């Protein structure tokens, strides 16, 4: 089994398996999964979609 970690769409840090991170489809294009680590979400840091460049929240 390969270990492929999801990357926080805000800070670019890999998300560890048991970290309370959140994910949802990009609100704009819907094609990319946005991941946000707990710290970034708590601080309201912006995320960027790698496909459509949408910047949230």
């Amino acid at each position, binding site marked *: 089994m390969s270990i492929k970690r999801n990357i926080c769409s805000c800070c670019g840090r890999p998300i560890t398996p048991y970290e309370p991170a*959140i994910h949802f489809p990009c*609100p704009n294009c819907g094609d990319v999964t946005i991941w946000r680590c707990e710290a970034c979400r708590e601080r309201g840091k912006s995320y960027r979609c790698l496909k459509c460049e949408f910047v949230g*929240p």
Partner: protein
Amino acid sequence: MARKKKKSEETQNIEDIQEEKSSLVDFEEDFEDDLDIEEELELLDTEDLSVLGEDKAVVVDKDEEKKNLFLSCGIHIGTKLLTGDARKFIYRQTNYGLYVIDLTETETRLKIAANLLSKFVDEGSDKVIVSSVRRYGKEPVKKFCEALGCKAITTRFIPGSLTNPNIETYIRDASVVVIVDPHADKVILNEAQLARVPVVSLFDTDDSLKGIDLAIPANNRGKKALGLAFWLLAKEISIQLGKISSENDFPYTLEDFTSKIVPLYNKQQSRR
């Protein structure tokens, strides 16, 4: 009226006294500072009003019509406070210090929010939780949920409802939470964070993005503004899900989505 005075004069004393009072009564009364459209329009300067007047006289096309609808509901009317998070959604500041939200941002974000929410509604509408502590948000939230089959929370949110499987009100597998006001709905906002549920929120000029995954810049205190935001959102989601084929087929009117509560301000006026 209380809000206007409180905000314009920013007298700490008044706030202190009001805070004390509200902590003694019901929790929900903390957020009874909703504004009526007439009252809000008073806060705009003449430039805004002349824009309104002109637009009403000549309704040209659909975009113009939509813009007029937005303006007449005051969805662009912010507050006298501006947070760093809200800066990117601002169109300008009026001479009286009121921040005005950029309508194009509101319109774009309503569409984007509809994109996201339609996915969650499609996967299971009863897992989509919509909540409002604000009085004027209750009716729009109820109608939104009636139209799309989502779960409305318009009474007090019981702490643990998203996090504690041992309580009666526990909602299993909530997929997304929609709130009206990050400040007023902070209990459910915090729980959504703990439960790892994405949060979509209306976002006024004095709000913070902490814990929010998608913000829709809009006036979240006004009666008409709240009605309009949820009406447009429900309509757009219905179109995206193929429940209706065009906007005109939406079985609810804007009036249906607007709170029927008569503001204290109007009651006082009619008594005179």
